[in-house]
Structures are given as structure tokens and as C-alpha cells.
């Protein structure tokens, strides 16, 4: 793990990936707002991502040699979950338009936050590389 692209940078990248995928899932729910029998899905930040963030080893595996594969989960996946609380309407569709729209804008704001954070971090790095900007 390099100094420039450390765990924090990777974490931001993961969060961008996650939000993009969540955006896709919300789009799918909105596309199927009139599909009979459709149950909306959502993504949850998974346990795996949490494990990745805290660098916890999966149970039963230990790294005893430098050449062993990393036991840290390096590709965290988001869990798809069905929204079981939504009440289906007459044709069995349970997409709640208002709920999906609010999730959509929430997701967009979070994505914006992540990209801004990433930019700030890069700016900080640039600042350090140029020795505080004083040439």
C-alpha cells in the first residue's frame, strides 16, 4: 500500500463504485415503476466493506508468509436487498415513487461529496508535493 494511494483513497474509490451501482439500482426501480409484480431493490454497504475498512482478517485464514495472497477482502461487494416493507399496490408492484426519488437525490449528493473529498485530498497531496506551493 503506497503512501499516495492509501487506504483512504481506496475507500473513497469504493464508495464511488458503490454509489454508482446504487444509482443503477434506483434507476431500475424507477424504470419498473409500472411493472406488475415488481419488488424494488436497494443496496446496502456490506459487512465486507466494513471488514475491508478495519482490515480485519476473515476467520480461519492467517497470513504467515509475505507471498501469501492478501486475506483482506479487497473487492467489497454491496448486498442487494429487497424492500419488504413497501406495500404492493393492486398489480403487485411496490415501487414507492417518492421514496425512490429521495434515494436518487441522496445518492447523487453522496456521490458529489465523495468526488469533492477525493479532489480535496488530491489538492492536499499536490500542496505537499510542491512544498506548500512556494516555488
Amino acid at each position, binding site marked *: 500500500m503506497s503512501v499516495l494511494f492509501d487506504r483512504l483513497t481506496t475507500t473513497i474509490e469504493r464508495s*464511488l*463504485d458503490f*454509489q*454508482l*451501482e446504487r*444509482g*443503477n*439500482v*434506483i*434507476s*431500475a426501480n*424507477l*424504470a*419498473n*415503476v*409500472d*411493472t*406488475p409484480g*415488481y419488488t424494488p*431493490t436497494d*443496496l446496502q454497504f456490506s459487512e465486507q466493506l466494513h471488514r475491508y475498512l478495519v482490515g480485519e482478517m476473515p476467520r480461519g485464514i492467517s497470513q504467515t508468509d509475505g507471498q501469501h495472497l492478501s486475506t483482506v477482502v479487497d473487492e467489497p*461487494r454491496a448486498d*442487494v436487498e429487497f424492500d419488504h416493507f413497501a406495500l404492493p399496490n393492486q398489480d403487485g408492484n411496490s415501487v414507492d*415513487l417518492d421514496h*425512490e*426519488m429521495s434515494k*436518487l*437525490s441522496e*445518492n*447523487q449528493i453522496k*456521490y*458529489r461529496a465523495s*468526488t469533492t473529498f*477525493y*479532489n480535496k485530498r*488530491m489538492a492536499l497531496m499536490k500542496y505537499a508535493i510542491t512544498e506548500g506551493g512556494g516555488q
Partner: protein
Amino acid sequence: MDFFTAMRISSSGLTVQRTRMNVTASNLANVDTTRTPEGGAYKPRHAVVAAIPVAQTFGEVLADKLHTQTTGAEVVTITADEGPGRLVYDPTHPDSNQDGYVEMPNLSVVNEMVNMVTANRSYEANVSAMQSLKQMAKNAFEIGA
């Protein structure tokens, strides 16, 4: 998964809503049609919508099976309402039967208007989804700028 997947999903939703709009327009235009090429009064049409996977490549199909279940929407068929039409007493009408009744299409203008409004709103929701994802893509392009 990329930004284009989201665009494909949203555009499938847009197509569905536009088709529903066309079907509704067709029904409303034929609210008083008593003569059709297939004979009899106009039969109201209904769009049947189904969820379809949007995956294109093998990798995406595999990912879909294993993990995410993002689906677009598609109008699979347009069915005709085979129910009997409304009978209106009008002996002077050229299409009236021997008892003086004319068979009018079995459709309710109120239902069609409601369909039109919901299709319109759903269309807007899909446009918003696409715009939101476009904004996200723009933000991604700004990284490092």
C-alpha cells in the same frame, strides 16, 4: 456496471412510458369509434410491462445472476380488451343493430386520463434518474481537475 448501464435502464423506462402514452392516446382518439377493420366497435388496448435484465456482455449477465438484479422495463405486448362494448340506444346511427343499440368501445375516459397522467409522471421520474446519473458522471470527470 458503468454510467451507461444506468442510461440504458432509464431509457428503457422512458420507452415504456412513451408506449403507454401512445396506447392511451390511441384509446382516447377512438373513444367513439364504432367501426374497425376487424369489425365491431374499437377494442381498448393495454400495454403489458415486464422487467427485463439490461445486461449486455457475458460478464454483466454473470454479475446479474450472481449479485445485482438491475432490470430495465419493456412493453412485452399490447393486448386488446375483448370485453363487450357499452350499448347506447341510437336508432338513427348507421351502425345500430335491429333493436336500435350501438356498440361503443368498452373504455372509460376517466381511466385513460389517469393512465395518461401516471405515464407522464413516470416518464418524468425516469428523466430525473437519467439526469441525476449524468450529474454524477460529470462530477466523476471533475476528479483531479
